[in-house]
C-alpha cells in the first residue's frame, strides 16, 4: 500500500500535479502569515507579514551561494587528495 502511494506521488507523470500542489502551499503559507495573530513580538521584523517567507528564501539562496563560492575557491578537492 505504502509502496503504491509513494510510487503514485513520486512518478514522473504526476510532476505537473506536484508543482500545482507545491505552489498552492506556498501561496497558502504566505497568505496565512497575514492573518496569524502575533502573540509575542520580540523584534521589529516579527511583525512584518511574510517576513519569514522572505527570510527563508534569502537564507537558502545565500547558503547555496556561500558554499558554492567557498567550495570552488578553496574547500572542495578531488577525492584522492589525502591519498
Amino acid at each position, binding site marked *: 500500500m505504502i509502496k503504491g502511494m*509513494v*510510487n503514485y506521488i513520486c512518478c514522473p507523470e504526476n510532476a505537473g500535479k506536484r508543482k500545482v500542489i*507545491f505552489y498552492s502551499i*506556498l501561496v497558502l*503559507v504566505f497568505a496565512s502569515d497575514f492573518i496569524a495573530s502575533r502573540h*509575542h513580538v520580540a523584534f521589529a521584523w516579527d511583525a512584518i507579514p*511574510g517576513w519569514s*517567507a522572505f527570510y527563508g528564501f534569502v537564507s537558502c539562496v545565500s547558503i547555496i551561494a556561500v558554499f558554492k563560492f*567557498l567550495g570552488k575557491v578553496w574547500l572542495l578537492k578531488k*577525492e584522492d587528495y589525502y591519498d
Partner: protein
Amino acid sequence: MTDWFHPSILFIAGAFLIPFLKGNVRKAYLVLIPALAMIAVFSTAEGTYGTHSFLGHEIIFGKVDKLSLVFSYVFTLMAFIGMVYSLHVEDPGQHMAAFLYVGSSLGAVFAGDYFTLFIFWEIMAFTSAYLIFAKRERRSIEAGFRYLLVHVFGGACLLGGIILHYTDTGSTLFGPIEHNGSMGFYLIMIGFIVNAAVPPLHAWLPDAYPESTVTGTVFLSIFTTKVALYVLARAFPGTEILVWFGTMMALYGVIYATMENDCRRLLAYHMVSQLGYMIAGVGMGTEIGLNGAIAHAFTYIIYKGLLFMAAGSVIYVTGIRKLSEMGGLYKTMPLTFILYMIGGFSISAFPFFSGFVSKSMVVAAASHDHRAVVTLLLTIASSGTFLSTTLKLPYHMFFGHDSGIKAKEPPLNMLIGMGIAAFLCIAIGVFPGPLYSVLPYPVDFEPYTGDHITGSLGILMFTALGFFMLLKYLHPKNLISLDTDWSYRMGSRVFMRIAKGPVGVYEGFITEVSNTIALPVIYSFAGIGLWIDRNIVDRFVNGVANFVLTISASVRRIQTGFLQHYALGMVIGIMVIIIIYSLVGGG
C-alpha cells in the same frame, strides 16, 4: 547503593556474556538488557546514591537529578532502538563495544564527581573507537586512530583541568564551575568541547563517524556528543562564549553539510549544526535556554538516529555511500524513504514533528534575551537544515537521475528499529507534554501558536522554493571537502617529510663527519690504550697475581688443618715474642 540499581552495570557486565550466546538467544538478550535498563532508569527517584570514599575523596556513582535522568531516559530508549536495528549483525565484538559504550555513557551521566566522570569519559572514547575500527577497512582504521588521538588529547585536557580545579577549590564534586577564567576552567571546557564537536575541534566527527559500520554510526551519533552537551549543561550554564560557539557551529555545519557528497558525512556535518543550537541554549543559561537545549538533545537523539538508520539502510542494501552514484531509489525502497522523511521533517522542525517543539524553544530563548543576531543566524541555520538534510540528500538518494541500482527494503529488524524512532518523532511532535514534564525546569512555553506555525512554515517552504529554483547548481560531485582535520592529516605528513628530509640529511652529515674525522682519532687513541693495557697494566696485574699465588701456596702449606701444629705454632710465636721482649725491652 541500597535502593538504586546503576543501569551501567547491566550494560558493562552484560557485555561480557554476549560472545557466549548464539542465535535467537543472543538476539533476545541484546534487546532485553536495554529494556531492563529502561525500567531501571524510569523507576529511579532523584537523590545521591553509590557514594564511596577513596583515598580521602568522595566518589559518587549516582548523582540522580532531573538533568541526569532526562539524558538517561533517552539514552536507554535509543540503546534499545539501536539494538533492534543492529540485531542482524553477527559480529559479537560490535555488540560488546556498543554495550560498553552505552554503559560508560550512562556512567558519565550519573557521575557525581570529576574522577568518576573522567574514567567513564575515557572508556567511552575507546569503546566508541572500536565501533569505527570494526569496519575493518584501511580508511576506517586510519580514521579510527585519528578519532582516538583527538579524544586522547581532549581527555588529557580534561584531566589536567580537573587536577587544577581540585588544587584551586579542594573539591572534586561535579557541578557548575565558577567563571573565574583560571587555567582549570579553560582546560575542562576544552576537554568538554572537543567531545561536543565545537569547531575548530570538531573535525573528528565528520572524519570518523561515516567510516564506522552501518549500525556503529547509529550508536556513535547518540552518545559522545550528547554526554558532552550534558556535562556542559551541568558545569558551564550561562557561559557567554558558548552562545557564540553554538551559533557559529549551527551555520558552519549546514554550509559543510550542503557541500557534501557522502551521505553519512552530510549527516555528520549536520550533527555539528544541531549541536550548535543546544550549545547556544546552554550558553544562554536561562531556564528556557537550558530546557530548550535539553529538549532538543532529547528529540535530536531520536531523529538523528532515525536519519542515520535510514541512510545506513541504503548503504547496507546498495553498498553505495556517495550521493552522486545514487538516485531513483524511491521505487525500490519506499518504506525507507518515508521513514527517512519523517526524520527529515523532524530535524527541519516542521509543525507536528518532534524538532518543532524543541528547536523553537532554543530560538525563543534567544529572542527572550533580545539576542537579535543569534536569532537571525539560528534561523538561517534552520533553513540550511531543511535544505541539506531534508531536500538535498533525499532528492539525490531517492529521486534525481535514476541510477538503476537494484535495491530492496532492508531486513525487518532494521525497519522495526526505524519504525519505533519514527513513531516517537511524530508522537513527541504532536504531544510535547510528556517531554516537557521531564525537563529540569518548569516549562512555560507553547509551541503551537498561529504566528509560530506560519513563521516556521514560511521559512521552510520558501527554502524549498529556493532549492528547486537552484537545483541545477546542486548536483553532487565526486569531491571531498577540506576541514580542520587537514591540519593534522597534512601536518603529520609535513612532520614525516621533515623527518625524512632535513633531519635525514643532517643525520647523514653527522654520520659522515664521525666516519671520516672522529673515528680515525678514536681508533688511534684506542691503539695506544690497547698497548698500555697489554704491556703495562696487564704485566702489573699479572705480577701481582703471581705474587699472590706464591704467597697463598706457602700459606696453604702452613695451613695443615691439624690442631697440634697450630698449637705448636702459637707456642713458638709466644716464645719468640718473649725472647725479643727480654732482649730489647730488658736491655
